[in-house]
């Protein structure tokens, strides 16, 4: 049971904060979606939570342990990150890529052992990428690459998983597959999941809670029904928005009408 918490955290680049005094909590088994306009700092938030950029003030903790005090390997045993599947070194096989998820458990000089290999293969089986194990990742489709990266994060065996726009370049079916997989993993493995997404309708369907960012701050956090309301969204995105019940499942369907 690992709880990811931001405590009044401010962070950004070159001493200019992108997000200020952010406080939020993500619970085990929960998928928290982070939404907001381009440039609001969704990816920056993932970078801060994975120790890539330092905090100006506040802290980020996992079960009250400050991630800023951890070594890279310690932190990577708590937090795995699924990046966008772009610029992968394409000649590595999918299995090689997934095996790199074992990095935080291996010394620089230590090779992977059979157990690491087994863990990697299990992660690939779970993400339906086992058939791709021998293929160079550069030859895989965007959706397949994204699933390989999720397998890599799974192989990292970390209780917290951060995903940065994992559906950005995927078609409808692959968006659906990837997010369903994330949902299932959160429940099965009791993962604490934070995911940044653009598509508010995917957010509405796949997330347990939503954090809406605007102007360097957390504007609202809560259930999709509460956060995805026309007034707040119109304010944040600066366009007219209507929200109607989705004809298939009744969750909020966000429509922009320009």
């Amino acid at each position, binding site marked *: 049971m690992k709880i990811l918490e931001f405590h009044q955290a401010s962070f950004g680049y070159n001493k200019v904060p992108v997000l200020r005094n952010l406080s939020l909590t993500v619970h085990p088994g929960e998928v928290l979606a982070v939404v907001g306009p381009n440039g609001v700092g969704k990816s920056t938030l993932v970078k801060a939570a994975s120790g890539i950029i330092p905090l100006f003030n506040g802290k980020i903790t996992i079960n009250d342990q400050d991630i800023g005090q951890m070594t890279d390997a310690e932190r990577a045993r708590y937090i795995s990150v699924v990046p966008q599947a772009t610029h992968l*070194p394409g000649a*590595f096989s999918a299995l090689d890529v997934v095996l790199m998820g074992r990095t935080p458990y291996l010394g*620089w000089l230590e090779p992977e052992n059979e157990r690491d290999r087994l863990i990697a*293969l299990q992660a690939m089986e779970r993400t339906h990428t086992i058939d791709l194990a*021998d293929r160079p990742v550069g030859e895989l489709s965007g959706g397949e690459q994204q699933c390989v990266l999720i397998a890599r994060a799974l192989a*990292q065996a970390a209780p917290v998983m951060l995903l940065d726009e994992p559906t950005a370049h995927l078609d409808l079916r692959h968006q659906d597959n990837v997010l369903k997989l994330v949902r299932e993993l959160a429940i099965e493995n009791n993962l604490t999941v934070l995911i940044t997404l653009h598509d508010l309708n995917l957010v509405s369907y796949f997330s347990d809670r939503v954090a809406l960012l605007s102007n360097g701050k957390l504007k609202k956090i809560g259930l999709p029904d509460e956060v995805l309301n026309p007034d707040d969204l119109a304010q944040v995105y600066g366009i007219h928005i209507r929200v109607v019940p989705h004809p298939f499942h009744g969750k909020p369907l966000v429509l922009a009408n320009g």
Partner: protein
Amino acid sequence: MDTVKQQPLTGSVVRNKQGAGSLAPWLWTGGALLVFIILSAGIGPVAIPPNTVVRMLLSRIPFLDLSVNWRASFETILFEIRLPHTVLMALIGMALAGSGAAYQGLFRNPLADPYIIGVASGAGLAAVLSMAVSWPVSLLSIITVPLAAFIGALVTVALVYSLARVGRSTPITSLILAGVAVSAFMSALTSLIMLLATHELHRAIGWLFGGFGLGGWEPVIASLPYLAVGLGILILLARPLNVLQFGDIQAKQLGLNVERFKLAIIISASLVAATAVSFAGIIGFVGLIVPHLVRLIWGPDYRRLIPLATIGGGAFLLATDILARIAMAPRQLPVGVVTAIIGAPFFLWLLRRTKKNVSYW
């Protein structure tokens, strides 16, 4: 492979397509190295046939009784002149190609090589500086020259890298531009120092183009510890170097201490490159061509790429050295000239290819 058997579902797919366990790449590179060692030891004003070279080498193995049917003068020629030169050339080629492969992985840039990123010129400048101080070559300079070259190499790589860095990445073009500019500056300073130290001009020029004044086993013995340590570390650090191919951010998120790891690679690769420079002068393009051929044929996994490039580099430099010795015999060309004549067109081809697509990278 035990786990594969436990998992019938996955058993069929867990074959490595590039044959990670396959011996072929090692046999090819190792075989080429062996062949060129034998050829190199035999070729010269007094030719020793390859089979005699092999027999003479075998005769040095204790308890192996071989009838001696070669001229006595061959003993001196082979064991005191040709073989030390051959082994040194093989070591230098290994050093250049091994460090080249490591620099390419470090900068994630297919055009990084000790020569192009200016490390060789920096090491050369520092080596010439130290030569100017502790002239003439003595036992002391055999220690001070590599040390000075090592420091020169480190300073240069830091300078070029910081000049080439744009934000969080090092684009190919800026790396080459910075490397060329720094390299030209260092070379100009080297020329200046050599002009000022006129009495040693000829020696220094010969050295700079890859001909080393010192003969015999001394340079081999002197360079071996640096090369063994440096190349050993690079070969051992190959797995995390693979992780670095995903970029600094992902590597850090995967738990690699990126800053410290890069430092370890820079220090080891520069130690190796600097040793090569201080014992053989500036020999370009070996560190570029060999790792690329290995990558093209056997893939990008640094766990195999670095050792294979190291072995292949030894074979490649020996082959060019043989060419340098026989092309205009009895005149001997500096080997650096030959590698540049072969290497520059290759570099241009690579540059064009890189623009289009680097699927194998």
